[in-house]
């Protein structure tokens, strides 16, 4: 049977939409009776409140079991017409398995307040925003920056107008792409290798051989980062043209990749 019942009610005023408040109930029950937790209320309570599933702490004191039940409510709705709302009563059920009884937690009331000040019909800013000042100079600067950005992107993608007509590796890259598209019969691999040779020759200003690669890198240090793939290309070319004519070990895609990297270095991007 119930030996104690104490209710700590929440503060009675000053709640805004979304606020939470708590009501704490302490109840002591003598064995073999116990609190029926399944019967505890939770969920939406009327128009204004939402009750979270209550948290229950319990401790044994001899044949008594003391329960502390925390009811947490959230204010989910307010209306200008209501300054005070009711927090409803609850019934706590205790049972020993066969017999049961109820204890009433009494209702209470709390004061609620609107977010906006009383008397105002709608929320308005205190001051109108200042109009932006129209500055032709700034407009021109922005326009120029935009044009420069577009031009820079275009340069990165395509280079200078007409530049690709004079840069050896740009020419080679274009010719390789055209060769790949045509896919004509004949010594396509040999033609592709020759195009790249001509690009190296034009860059160096003289025919480049494997024996003169060191001089090439000394004169054109920007290609030094590609020393390994370039050396590999020359070794393959020698094998293909002068030794066994084998083109298996050097995929076309690798050649295209080398030329594109050389083209980027040529444009100062590598």
């Amino acid at each position, binding site marked *: 049977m119930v030996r104690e019942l104490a209710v700590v009610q929440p503060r009675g005023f000053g709640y805004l939409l979304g606020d939470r408040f708590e009501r704490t109930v302490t109840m002591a029950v003598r064995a073999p009776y116990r609190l029926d937790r399944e019967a505890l209320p939770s969920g939406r309570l009327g128009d204004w409140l939402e009750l979270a599933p209550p948290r229950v702490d319990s401790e044994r004191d001899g044949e008594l079991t003391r329960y502390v039940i925390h009811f947490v409510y959230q204010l989910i709705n307010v209306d200008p017409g209501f300054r005070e709302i009711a927090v409803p009563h609850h019934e706590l059920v205790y049972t020993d398995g066969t017999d049961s009884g109820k204890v009433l937690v009494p209702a209470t009331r709390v004061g609620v307040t609107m977010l906006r000040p009383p008397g105002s019909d709608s929320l308005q800013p205190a001051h109108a925003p200042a109009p932006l000042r129209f500055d032709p100079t700034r407009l021109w600067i922005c326009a120029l920056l935009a044009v420069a950005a577009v031009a820079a992107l275009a340069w990165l993608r395509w280079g200078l107008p007409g530049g690709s007509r004079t840069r050896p590796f740009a020419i080679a890259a274009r010719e390789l792409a055209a060769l790949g598209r045509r896919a004509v019969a004949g010594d396509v691999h040999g033609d592709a290798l020759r195009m790249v040779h001509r690009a190296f020759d034009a860059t160096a200003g003289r025919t480049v*051989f494997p024996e003169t690669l060191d001089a090439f890198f000394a004169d054109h240090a920007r290609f030094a980062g590609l020393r390994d793939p370039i050396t590999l290309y020359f070794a393959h070319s020698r094998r293909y*043209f*002068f030794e066994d004519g084998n083109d298996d070990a050097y995929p076309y895609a690798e050649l295209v990749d080398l030329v594109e990297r050389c083209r980027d270095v040529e444009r100062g991007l590598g």
Partner: protein
Amino acid sequence: MQTSTDATLGDWRHRALEFESELGKAVIGQDHAIRLLAVAVFARGHALLEGDVGVGKTTLLRALARVLGGDFERIEGTVDLMPNDLVYHTYIKEDGRPAVEPGPLLKHGERLATFFFNEVNRARPQVHSLLLRVMAERSVTAFNREYRFPHLQVFADRNRVEKEETFELPAAARDRFLMELNIAMPADAELQRQLMFDPRFYDVDALIGGLREGVLPFAELNEVAAQIQRFVRTSPAIERYALELCAATRAPADYGVTLDGVEISKLVLSGVSPRGMGMLMRAAKVAAWLQGRDALVPEDLHAVLHETVAHRVFFHPVYELRRDELIGTLLDQVKGKVAAP
């Protein structure tokens, strides 16, 4: 003469490297010249050495004769040397009767392997003419019969300092030489120090005498040389490149060659002859073989280009006086302008 059946070209290459190594013991700092002499030996071509006085031309050729094996003959070019002096020698015997003996060319018969003509430009054109025949045909007619020298290689030297009382070799004679080598003093300071302070280099006879004799069986060289020419392959790309290199020496303007202060279209009177083209290819194939390859690549042509081609390119008289200055630049530009592949 047949090559011994168990001696493969690989073994011969090993011997060729030994040959170079032996020469290197007598003459230091001349690795490039030694390699080219090995090329000349295995290409069975004659070689002309040119350089300043005392740079080691004669020592190098004496060392070569010893290491090569076979009979060696040497003659000094002088202004009064006549062709007959090469062929026979006349004298009065002790009994007062005249006698005729074979001269330097004939007395060794077919065993003559190395004929060293020292200071060839001091000899008269009549002698050059005989030399031309010997070099081209490896034979000479004397005493109503023909003498043949199947293993003969002529090495000549010429110093470039003195020009008085000398007779410039005619173009036809120069064209017979597989290569002309320029022997220069070693630039390396340590090598110069050795040449100056190491007593080993003071006594040339002892220096040459310390070399192994007959490292290369001279009688088999003709057959080995033919095998090398068959062994080293040439792709269509390298053949095209070699032909263009030669064409560029005849018409450098067509290949975009330019030289300072030279009207390039009027520079060359005649470029590499068909014989010269063949010799370039023979030498390049041997260079490839010595490098351990069985296929010719542009670098092999470059390795022998100057030595096999420079003396076959003849300039307009206006430019001939500047030959030493121009020929190197011309050939370098030719290498730089002809595309490969």
